[in-house]
């Protein structure tokens, strides 16, 4: 079978497949009141897309590093083994052990955080969720938006709040990279029960102290991390699509031959 057919088929199916798979993500909660117009940002935060590419190995490798450095302190990935992850991501064994795995972990161990559940409950009020399937249950765009909308909120115990998940228990652990942001609100005239009133709605973020990364760098950091979570949610997905092309090609050929056979058998039926 020629390479061009495979390429054509993969082009035919893959974007559609990806579109259909991401289409079902739960929609972000709409902002209260009237439409929110980002003054500085061109895109509403509700419309932000992860835009990750799960077949991009170097992006996954960076995502794995980010996960190990920033997430694993609290969040486990209990369905994922270090060895399998490093094999899939083509990270050499030695490098995996030196840079990604905790010092006492063995390659066949599951990727489990060392945070004890009772400590987590004491410190944050709840156990941090396992992230093995987070990209499947919430969708990649949800996670991307979550990490684009942390802001300072002195009213909360962690001094942190989030537009996607109001009252989030998790502190803004990436603020050293992204910078510290506060939410700027604007007054919008709305009509409630026939009476005009003024409502405070989110307008845009203002950065009060910059982080180590520029916005573009931070977005890339986030995209790689979300990409890794996408991979971890369904680690066979890249293999699955490449096997699928051959299965579909075989079945098309099978159907074609079966059709010719049927025509031949039926030529005397009038």
């Amino acid at each position, binding site marked *: 079978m020629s390479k061009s057919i495979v390429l054509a088929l993969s082009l035919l*199916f893959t974007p559609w497949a990806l579109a*259909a798979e991401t289409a079902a993500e739960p929609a972000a909660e709409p902002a209260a009141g009237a439409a929110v117009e980002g003054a500085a940002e061109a895109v509403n935060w509700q419309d932000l897309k992860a835009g990750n590419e799960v077949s991009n190995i170097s992006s996954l490798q960076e995502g794995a590093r980010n996960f190990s450095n920033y997430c694993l302190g609290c969040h486990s990935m209990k*369905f994922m083994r270090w060895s399998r992850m490093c094999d899939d991501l083509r990270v050499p064994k030695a490098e995996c052990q030196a840079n990604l795995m905790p010092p006492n972990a063995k390659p066949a161990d599951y990727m489990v955080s060392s945070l004890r559940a009772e400590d987590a409950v004491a410190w944050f009020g709840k156990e941090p969720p396992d992230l093995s399937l987070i990209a499947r249950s919430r969708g990649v765009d949800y996670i991307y938006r979550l990490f684009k909308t942390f802001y300072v909120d002195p009213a909360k115990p962690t001094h942190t709040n989030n537009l996607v998940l109001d009252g989030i228990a998790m502190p803004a652990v990436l603020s050293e990279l992204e910078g510290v942001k506060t939410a700027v609100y604007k007054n919008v005239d709305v009509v409630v029960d026939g009476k005009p009133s003024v409502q405070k709605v989110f307008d845009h973020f203002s950065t009060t102290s910059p982080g180590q990364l520029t916005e573009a760098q931070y977005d890339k950091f986030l995209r790689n991390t979300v990409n890794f979570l996408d991979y971890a949610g369904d*680690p066979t997905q890249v293999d*699955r699509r490449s096997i699928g092309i051959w299965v*579909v090609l075989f079945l098309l050929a099978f159907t074609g031959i079966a059709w010719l056979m*049927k025509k031949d058998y*039926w030529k005397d*039926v009038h």
Partner: protein
Amino acid sequence: MASNDAASQVNQGAGFMGWLNKRLPVNKFISDQLLEYYAPKNFNVWYFFGSLALLVLVMQLVSGIFLTMFYKVGDTTAFESVEFIRREVSYGWLIQSLHAIGASAFFVVVYLHMYRALMYGSYKAPRELLWLFGMFIYLALMAEAFMGYVLPWGNMSYWAATVIINIFSTIPVIGPGLVEWIRGDYGVADATLNRFFSLHVVAIPLILLLLVALHLVALRQVGSNNPDGIEIKENKGSDGKPVDGIPFHPYYTVKDIVGVGFFLTLFAVVVFFVPTFGGLFMEEANFEPANPLSTPEPIAPSWYFTPYYAILRAVPNQRIGALLLLLAVLAFFFLPWLDRSPVKSVRYRGLWFKGMLAVFTVSFLALMYLGLKPASASYVNAARVFAIGYFSFFVLMPLYTKWDRVKSVPKRVSFHE
């Protein structure tokens, strides 16, 4: 046309086959069921779905056997074992996908198979019993799919089970006790999961196989209907064979293989490229373990139950809603006796039936869509309108099939190649 003489004079064969045929009617069976079984020659694409349903049944049985080797029933082990199958069992992801998506494929195929019967009047005499066996298969399939859906013990498994079992609580007097008896606990719990596993892998598959066997025997007895709704047995040639009939084998075996090819191609596209099918075949909420403290919004049953779920929610009174849900399913059973038309196929029926079939089609699909949506006021009002459309197809059938101006049915089937 390759045909033997009479079915009674079956070639016994020599050697081993001769020995075998004296003790087991192998050749006789093949002759009766395939070579000398005459099917109308004018089947169209709608006639693929019977053999496809059988294919999906076998696929579900085989993939289910392999899943059972690794699945660990129990409220603390079920979710993790499914994830173990997807990640660590060789090609477990494929087997699990085939089975989970196969459940949806089963309903796609069965709904189209049933719709074929509605269009061409395949439920009418002399095929009433064939239709009833088919409807019992449909009921068993719904039970099988519902219990299978609970087994991965995801959050939607848990909540869908909770909601669906609670429908039984609306039954007067015995309702609350019955619900407890079904669950085996005060809520959906480990006991529920274990009994559903037992029923899903042993009891209901046995019932399904028995019903499928009866369905096929009844089909062989009365013969297949066809898109013209003409009884081919009433028009036999001088050789005693129906003039519009052709032997099932080789004609329909080779034709059904083409249908199998088309079906498997589409199925493979879903399995390999869009396994969740936008959340319809695998829901996002089911990738979180069962959690009695966190209700997914909205709770929707699988897409193949949503027409009935929408009817349930359309009624403010829960008890009446549950009754209408039951009637919506059972209505199909009465079709052979509700239909007073002298003709079977929609091709020779009048505007009344065509119009009502269109109303039913639109209502069923609309209810399916609405059942997947949250129960907001506008959706519930729309569901009420379509529920009326759904039931009027059945309730008014004795009237409009009588009023209908039918065309005269020709003696021979129309055949286009």
